[in-house]
Each structure stands twice: as structure tokens, then as C-alpha cells.
């Protein structure tokens, strides 16, 4: 499973893209978040943590098969 990181999450993980194929096998978005927060406890201190699947905001119960484009969306601050 390939995951894109932006903003502060990119700084926390130290990379803009990580392949977690050997470690993460989440069945849905909620589980992905849980696994990532376990790996990167700093994520739990953020104001919010959203996940985009195929470049759309994804609900927690959206199922994942590992072939999606996954992106971690920390609190946005455009404008």
C-alpha cells in the first residue's frame, strides 16, 4: 500500500511517499488511520487527520483494497 504525505505529516514521516506493502493491510480508512497513528504517534496531536482515496475525501468506513491512491491530509491552510 502506497501512501502520500503532505504538509506537517510529510515532515513527521520524513518523506512525501512511503510504500507500506509489508506492514499495512487496513480493511478500511478508519483502520488505516489507526495503524498510521500507531507508527507515527505525532499524528494524534494534529487538529485533524483526513484521508483521501483516489483524490477524494474518504469516510472512515470506506473499504480499501491496497490499489488506491491514498493521501494523508493534515489540517488544510490555503488562502
Amino acid at each position, binding site marked *: 500500500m502506497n501512501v502520500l504525505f503532505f504538509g506537517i505529516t510529510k515532515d513527521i514521516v520524513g518523506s512525501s511517499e512511503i510504500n507500506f506493502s509489508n506492514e499495512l493491510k487496513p480493511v478500511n480508512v478508519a483502520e488505516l488511520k489507526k495503524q498510521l497513528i500507531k507508527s507515527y504517534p505525532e499524528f494524534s496531536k494534529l*487538529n485533524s487527520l483526513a484521508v483521501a482515496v483516489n483524490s477524494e475525501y474518504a469516510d472512515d468506513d470506506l473499504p480499501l483494497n491496497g490499489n488506491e491512491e491514498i*493521501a494523508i491530509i493534515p489540517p*488544510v491552510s*490555503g*488562502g
Partner: protein
Amino acid sequence: MKKVIEIVDEIDTAKVYAELSDANSGGICVFVGAVREFTNNEEVVALEFETYKAMALKEMEKIADAAMQKWSLNKVVMRHAVGEKGVEEPVVIVGASSAHRDACFEACRFLIDTLKETVPIWKKEKFKNKTVWVSAHP
């Protein structure tokens, strides 16, 4: 073409009227967001913007479409800059044109408010001795 949605390196504020002007529009309202010199009394050296571009463009399209459904608009522009921006440089420009001014004012406010809430763009404030990802922490 009714919508202009872009992520760019530099914003040219001078061309937005040509983009929004329309024979059926009596009113055009434009908002420009720019870099301020001070945030909470600390001097800002620059802001740095990054984006998840494919998703940001999709989200901006959704906002423009929602505005066009909510109000009777002729044209909509939403353009955000990325990269490092110094004091007074424009970082975002949004605007709408409509027959009467109520619609373009309300839509313009909606465009910038919603952009700030949902579009995946992140801003790092660079001060003399530190950098801060805006809104990241409580």
C-alpha cells in the same frame, strides 16, 4: 468557458477582470489573499504553500459548481499559488460575476471561505528563527 480553476506559481491580479467580465454581468466581486508582514506580532519572512494538486483542483471545481448552483453566476475564477511567497505577494484570488451585486458578493465570500476549509493546500509560516505549519496543532 464559465469557470477558471488553477494552481499556479504566480498570480497575475491584472487579468482577473477580463476573465470575469460578461455582457450579462452588472457586478464583479474579487477577493485577493496576500502575505501579511506580521502574524501575532511576529515578523513573517515568507509563506510557503504546497498542495496535493490533483485533489485540490477537484475540490476547487466542487466549490465553483456549488456556488453556481447556489447563486445565479455568469463566471467564476479560483486560482491559488504554490511555492514561496513574500510579504504583499498575492497567494489566492477568487471572484464571481453576476447580473446584480448581491450574488457576486455572497458567492465570492463563499468561494474563499470554503476554499480555506476543504482544499488540500498547506501553508508554512517562515519566521526569522522558526517555521510553523499553520493550523496543524490545536
